[in-house]
């Protein structure tokens, strides 16, 4: 297993290089220099100042040397400084917001798993029935409805109309005065709506997949064998069928990582949650290139890590892969 894990991790290196190269090229496609953002807004910026700034940022060097220098800094997690007035390190800006985005996405994944597995299996065992048809319709609607629209409707219904939940932010104003449990409750009340709404898309996808996968499995010979040797329908379904249906779930969860992270841009800006997505959006709006570039690389690295975890998880749960990996 260790050898397999190491192999998978080493295989990530070329992917990481590719990600940085694409990110670098995307940002250098820009007409003009990233430094124009600083000089153009300043009427007193002289020609010399421009040239000096270009030198500071290394923009006077050939492209491949620029990339190499940027890569060297990146290896030390140095993304440069933000163009915004606070001029803070991009690294600090990203890492202080990362935990919030990760926590939100992990919570979304937990919801996706907790609901889609019973939903998919139940629909599969009753294929064609009322429950199956209702859930199919709901799944298609969850697929097609824009998440930001559902977020708006949720804010209107639960925030404005019913007044049950806060409509935005991470904590209430009086957060500092609360005790531990009230703090946790306050956070929960703020996060429950964004978490549920951002999980809807993945939930629809996974339950749909589980449904058709289970329908295929139910028809297979080994289940007939299990029934023939006298096992109860319960054991056949929830033990033999479920285990086999769940194996690909690990992979699908891994594949859903980019969607969830990308979706956090929208969710976090709607609900004013100070996470990576909101940081990225604000950076895009203000053309803060170092932060945009840092965010782009981080987003891809998170996806890569998600895929890695999915692969390792797959090796753990699938005996066919596991045996090969342990050799």
């Amino acid at each position, binding site marked *: 297993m260790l050898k397999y894990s190491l192999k998978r991790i080493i295989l990530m290196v070329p992917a990481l290089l590719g990600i940085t190269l694409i990110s670098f090229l*995307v940002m250098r496609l820009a007409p003009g220099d990233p430094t124009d953002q600083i000089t153009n807004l300043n009427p007193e910026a002289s020609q010399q100042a421009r040239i000096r700034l270009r030198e500071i940022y290394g923009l006077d060097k050939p492209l491949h040397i620029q990339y190499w220098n940027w890569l060297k800094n990146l290896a030390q997690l140095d993304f440069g400084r933000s163009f915004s007035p606070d001029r803070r390190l991009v690294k600090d800006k990203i890492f202080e917001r990362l935990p919030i985005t990760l926590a939100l996405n992990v919570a979304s994944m937990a919801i996706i798993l907790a609901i889609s597995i019973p939903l998919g299996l139940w629909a599969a065992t009753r294929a064609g029935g009322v429950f199956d048809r209702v859930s199919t319709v709901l799944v298609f609607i969850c697929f097609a409805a*824009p998440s930001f629209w559902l977020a708006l409707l949720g804010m*209107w219904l639960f925030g404005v109309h019913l007044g049950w939940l806060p409509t935005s932010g991470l904590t209430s104003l009086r957060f500092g005065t609360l005790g531990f449990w009230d703090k946790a409750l306050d956070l929960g009340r703020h996060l429950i709506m964004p978490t549920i709404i951002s999980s809807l898309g993945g939930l629809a996808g996974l339950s749909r997949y589980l449904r*058709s996968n289970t*329908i295929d499995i139910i028809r297979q010979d080994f289940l007939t064998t299990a029934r023939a040797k006298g096992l109860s329908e319960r054991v056949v379904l929830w033990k033999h069928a479920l285990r086999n249906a769940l194996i690909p779930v690990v992979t699908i969860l891994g594949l859903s990582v*980019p969607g969830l992270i990308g979706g956090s841009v929208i969710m976090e800006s709607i609900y004013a949650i100070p996470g990576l997505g909101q940081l990225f959006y604000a950076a*895009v709006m203000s053309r803060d290139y170092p932060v945009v570039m840092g965010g*782009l690389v981080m987003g891809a690295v998170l996806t890569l890590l998600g895929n890695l975890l999915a692969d390792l998880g797959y090796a753990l749960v699938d005996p066919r892969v596991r045996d090969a990996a342990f050799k």
Partner: protein
Amino acid sequence: MSPKKAFKRILANRLAFAGGLVVLAMFMVSWLAPVLATHDPEAVAIKERLKPPGYNQHLLGTDSLGRDVLSRLIWGSRISLKVGFVAVGLATLIGLILGAIAGYRGGLVDGLIMRFCDLMLCFPSMFLILAVIAILDPSIWNVMIVIGLTSWMGVARLVRAEFLSLMTRDFVLAARAQGASAARIVWRHLLPNAMGPVLVSATLGVAGAILTESSLSFLGLGVQPPTPTWGSMLTDGKDHLTRAWWLSLYPGLAILATVLSYNLLGEGLREAFNPHSSNRDNS
């Protein structure tokens, strides 16, 4: 075929049929927008701002600048369709070319193209799209091009897989044995047989592109005002959530209906192209 199964298949086809009808209706609406719209979608009337549905011939109410919501919805369908089709057209073209090269040539070229494909899939597409939009300026053309450039990977993989399986088939071997040129084999034998899955993926792709465009416009990074788009109408809805629910409800319903229809149509097409569809789930 049991009656129950038959019923399910009819239902499946019915859903796809209904989806197709709505798609057609959307085409008609956007084509006939000048006739159907009761008001000028960009005509500002500050005195009549934020009026509820039914007020003074405004069937679906007015927005924060007093513009007619229904007319803006009707004109907004043009943007959605345009973005959907141009972006997907571009993505399909790139995917077809790269997938065909990778599948037909194999070897190193195939490896390079597919690794590039994997890399592009590593980026959360929203991040990549926003980063490019940050460099270029937001406009309808840039949005279409960027969505196209970031969504071709599925088609490329699909076409490559189709090519690989088709190339082992007898009729391709026969064509090759007769001395047909590579171009002829690709054009006459491989591409036409690979078009089914591509059509399915393009149909589903239109739905995805419409969703992406509306998200971008909602974030203020898509098609710029005053052009009416469903996404930017929802931004207005967000700003006036407490006072005007109709601004948040109707544009979202329009997006939902359109995207749902393309998805249903795409799933129906998938069924139709799938030779094993009778033993697969088909609702």
